[in-house]
């Protein structure tokens, strides 16, 4: 089990190994926030247990349109900063002579990618990517953004498990918003499973427990249907 560290804890004496969640002062490496210590010979980092999403270029995020302007949309990406999606970053062939508010309106959810962040922390989004699209169907749920890596799993193992076991579409935004689409009962199972992952993110053997959980749930549903038929 990994050690829990708190801000200001000395975690290494070699400034060269300092990674995410650490800061260097006087040639020593300290933890920057509450998290789990991940220490190897070549690097030291702190995996956060909590905290807001900080945008990073290239991240896939799910956002909600909050404002429509003449040349784009102001999008809430559940971070300390509002993001801007210019109309020039919306796929041209999908515009089809429509007005800005006819393409996306206030309250619409979108899957987008972070294009750029300037030093003033002005975030620009793009939708010119295969995964990007406006969300018209399905369900969007929110989790703690620090737990996103566990929902995705090692090289996407957890997400693959959910997709193959339930046969549904899932897109995980780095900002902790997750889009699920498919059969309603299966989406509900996925939602519950994701909440379990969020709760138990820092425990061992999670993948096995989730497999078990989904099997049980699917079994329950089948029994329920059989009863309803008879």
């Amino acid at each position, binding site marked *: 089990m990994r050690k829990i560290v708190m801000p*200001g804890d000395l975690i290494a004496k070699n400034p060269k190994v300092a990674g995410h969640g650490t*800061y260097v002062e006087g040639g020593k490496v300290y933890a920057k*926030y509450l998290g789990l210590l991940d220490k190897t010979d070549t690097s030291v980092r702190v995996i956060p247990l909590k905290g*807001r999403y900080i945008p990073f270029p290239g991240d896939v995020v799910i956002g909600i349109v909050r404002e429509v302007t003449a040349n784009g949309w102001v999008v809430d990406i559940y971070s*300390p900063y509002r993001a801007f999606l210019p109309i020039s970053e919306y796929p041209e062939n999908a515009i089809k002579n429509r007005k800005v508010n006819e393409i996306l309106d206030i309250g619409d959810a979108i899957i987008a990618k972070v294009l750029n962040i300037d030093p003033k*922390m002005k975030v620009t989004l793009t939708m010119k990517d295969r995964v990007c699209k406006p969300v018209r169907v399905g369900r969007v749920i929110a989790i703690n953004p620090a737990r996103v890596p566990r929902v995705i799993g090692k090289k996407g193992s957890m997400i693959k498990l959910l997709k193959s076991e339930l046969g549904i579409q899932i897109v995980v935004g780095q900002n902790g918003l997750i889009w699920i689409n498919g059969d309603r009962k299966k989406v509900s199972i996925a939602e519950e499973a994701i909440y379990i992952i969020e709760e138990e993110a820092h425990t061992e053997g999670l993948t096995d427990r989730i497999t078990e959980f989904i099997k049980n749930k699917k079994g329950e549903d089948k029994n329920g249907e059989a009863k309803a038929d008879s």
Partner: protein
Amino acid sequence: MEKPKLIVDGKRLDGRGFEELRPIKIEVGVLKRADGSCYLEMGKNKIIAAVYGPREVHPRHLQDPSKAVIRYRYNMAPFSVEERKKPGPDRRSVEISKVSREALEPVIMKELFPRSGIDVFVEVLQADAGTRTACLNAASVALIDAGVMMKGIVTAVAVAKVDGQIVLDPMKEEDFYGEADMPVAFLIRNDQIESIALLQMDGRMTVEEVKKGIELAKKGAMEIYRMQREAVMKKYVKEEE
């Protein structure tokens, strides 16, 4: 009312020794909607703290393009003291908010979140002397719980001079009838006291007494620091089971 005897047979009114803290209880993550929260009891003091952010700052003109702004609100509930306290900010609570904010500002890594804001709210539910120090302790635990980036942990404790004796963590009677009291906050990093984040004094003490008081406060602060850490650990270890 006449001043009672505060020290009887080398013990304080509540039976504590001179260098003894009041019992402390800390609970982390008590508010679901806040990013970080903490409930703290220090003797008869009952404090609740909530931290939000980093988040967008409203109104906009308060934003700082180079760093995050920190807002700290200390508030006493009308029922927190024997005589009803008029609700709303007054001279005292505005001052406490300001000095507490200034104690936390150098600890929080504000430069990492330009244009954003971190809001800290502390509410005193029941007061029994030393509320500003108890509030700071609660606030720093809530900040850790919120995952805010910090250089270390702030821990505060008060010392007082009663009947010519320097004592740790005064309670209401000692604060009221004592000669002087001095709240001190420290920045603690890696189990070591790095600097003083806040120091105030009400009353008079000699240079020697102040020095002795600070040494005493350091000892008390280290004890509280360990309890703060333990409280945060407990939350996550519990989740693990």
